[in-house]
């Protein structure tokens, strides 16, 4: 069946089975391998994407659920080669190790800062607690999100 939706602002059409997992559509059908899959069961958050601006686990969604929706993947955060402030902060603050959890954590952080532009460290930990990282100690990610929040607030005209 044919399904159409918007990925990173671009209208996209696929002809697949309606129960195809959306993470497979992104990675295998559209070649957008920035979105990762770590558990296939909604536990690790590696497959996090934004659907209509809200974080969703693409391993738990079928393509049919996305009909007509606007989807943002990690690839969509880079605008004209410029990293999103969250991405920049992850690079600067050593928040990237093996990097496999990174796209999901970055998108969850983008959403968090969208809802709460000035989160405390506790709120960052709480807000990202659905994303697992196995390499780090989480603190560097918290540092990065704090720094990104600061930068984004400074960059926003009052």
């Amino acid at each position, binding site marked *: 069946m044919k399904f159409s939706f918007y990925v990173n602002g671009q209208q996209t059409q696929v002809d697949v089975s309606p129960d195809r997992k959306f993470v497979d559509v992104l990675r295998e059908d559209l070649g*957008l*391998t920035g979105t990762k899959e770590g558990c296939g069961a909604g536990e690790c958050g590696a497959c996090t994407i934004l659907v209509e601006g809200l974080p969703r686990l693409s391993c738990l969604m079928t393509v049919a659920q996305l009909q007509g929706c606007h989807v943002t993947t990690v690839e969509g955060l880079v605008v004209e080669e410029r990293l999103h402030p969250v991405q920049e902060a992850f690079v600067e603050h*050593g928040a990237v190790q093996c990097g496999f959890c990174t796209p999901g954590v970055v998108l969850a952080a983008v959403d968090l800062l969208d809802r709460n532009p000035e989160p405390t460290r506790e709120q960052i930990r709480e807000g990202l607690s659905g994303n697992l990282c196995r390499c780090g*100690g989480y603190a560097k990610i918290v540092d990065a999100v704090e720094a990104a929040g600061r930068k984004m607030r400074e960059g926003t005209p009052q």
Partner: protein
Amino acid sequence: MISRMLEIGYPQPRFDARSKVTGEEKYALDQCPESMLWAGAKRAGIPHGLIRKIDLSRARLLQGVHAVLTRADVPGTNRQGIVHKDQPVLAGHKVRHCGDPVVLVLAETRDILRTALNLIEVDIEPLPGVFDPEEALLPEAPLVHETGNLLRKAVIQTGNVSEAFQQCDVVVEDSFETASQEHAFLETENGLAWLEPDGRVVLIVSTQAPFRDRFEIGHALGLQPDMIRVIGPYLGGGFGGKNGATVQCLLVLAAMHAGNRPVKMWWEREESSTAGYKRHPVRMRYRLGAMNDGTLHALGCELFYDTGPYAHLGVEVMARGMEHAGGCYRIPNTFIEGRCVYTNNPISGAMRGFGVCQVSFGIEGMMDLMASRLGMSRLDIRLKNALRKGDRNCSGVTLVHSTGIVPCIESLGRHGLWTERGGWKAAAGPFKRRGIGIAAVSNAMGYGRGLQDSAIAKVELTWDGKIRVYNGVSDMGQGNSSAFVQIAGEVLRQDASRMELVQPDTDRTHPSGSSCAGRTTYTYGNALIKACEQLRDKLLHRAALMLSIDEPRGLALLPGRVRHLPSGREVPLELLGRFLPESDRIAVNQFVMPVSQDDINTGKEFKIGFPHVLFAYAAHLAYVEVDELTGKVEVKGYLAVTDGGRVINPSCFEQQVQGSVTQGIGYGLTEEVLVSEGKILNPNFTNYIIPTFLDIPEIASLPMESVEATGPFHMKGIGEVGTNGPLPAIAGAVEDAMGCRIRRSPITAESILHAMRNGRGAPR
């Protein structure tokens, strides 16, 4: 924007951070060519049995099934294994654990693959299984292998332990047990393989040992190593679990039947748990003797390592565990006996902290016990006995390299978290109790004697004037390849924008061993310095030629150019690159890690992997709060002081320390592969609980920078040592809070409530 200079010692963003944060970096899992087939294995599902019949007929009839293969289709020895070749690629006669693969299927899609695997019927006659390493050694125990269940028994001894115990003023005894742990990397085992028209097979695989993989695959499948090309991109985590064949042999076998199409194998999370390797569960019996002044004098220790049905690196893991069984202390008389035993449990193998995590729990528990028996402070007894350069360690090896455990402990003792601990402890809220624990730990670096630990580095001035490092040792996330770029940038005085990096590829890079054992940056980094110096000298000579200068004196490599300092004349590297033939733009050099020169007359059972001579050290401190009502333990604060020699990149150093401590806290509090009759009860993240953002406190990391004369820029590897501290430090803190020692990991709420009910948790 001005690109950052790559210099040693400053915090720097990792070279791979940008491509990973944008999602551009291609992991093995990201290889999804349109024409690919999917391969998967039908697994035994029972822990021990004889294969009576395999019915493939329904699977073969399924539309979209490309091939269905069994043991009869395996062309070589069918035996894989890093040292001991005891693990079948496909089981043909007998299954020895639930994850043994019996049938390999190739299908057009993953859905068809799953359906086909469900249509296969494997009739297995169950055999009695053995699931306990000590029961496995009883005469009537079922045999996992015909050769017997004892894979290796070994002894490490120094001095005269029986006499020594009689001389001791105090002798304490205790037993400990540690659970199995999952690596739980987020990228599960996977790869893509295909046949080239000339018959060679190419794999892009998530592996820690691309060069060794060729030999393992070749041996198992009857191929010459030169017929196999292994490409090893960045891994989505490894921690030891991708050291040795996971998908490799099955995948190459699949490629041989895929008709030149690429074929992908990707273990699902539960399959990764069932079929993948784990940390060895270990049972330990300790006896420690000291004089009244706290001087340690004798150590007796009996260890049982449950390696599951196959060796993997079981003997080598045990060797390293036995080598560290006496911790980082000076104990002149030791008798350490280990048995590595086959069972029908899941396969144990390499994991960060390689045998040492377990014994650190044992020896550090004994140190706490001895301190309380002698009325000494836990810190003082450690400091008093900590190894110093020039001492012999518990294996009799003379410590001739940097030995920083004393300064690590001293630094911990000066830290506010130690000096202010009383106030914190007293401020516990209602129904909470607080405690503080410490641990002093070490971890050997490198392969040890018997197996040359070497790396071969290659560096190139590209035709367009960039510096390209050909990394031969996998980067599973620890950042070694980023350190290589930094090292090359330092020696060749370049900034990040002028650097390129090639990840391991058996056709393009040179054999540099496996990514493990705290060896990657040390060994390859040393080789790379030599290669870069060679390239630098060459470039200066060639620049002199271009500038018609008699000799290279006064020439300096600068970012993007060579300058003749006296005259200010310059040659851009782009021009040098175009001027020189390819063979002249390359330098290759090798480094071999030093080994112990002591002629120690012990541990002879270990042909490889014993002893070691280089160690990283750390002193850890944990603040723990226990809920009296629920028994729940929370780590509220943590300090790790680490001797890793000089620090190349403080940011990466902290990443490694914080990451290893986090895995150690998981090991200490929640992580246990629950196994019943060989079957894993918690094979996914729903019930195998690794730490989240909410479970880990801020971890303070202090480097204690010794100068390791043999290290690249005087560094040592610290990938593993941090994993060894948390469990014993938490156990000590729980004892400090509750008055009871938990002797089995993980330290769960249940275990604490149980200890409290038995009256051992009463307030002191």
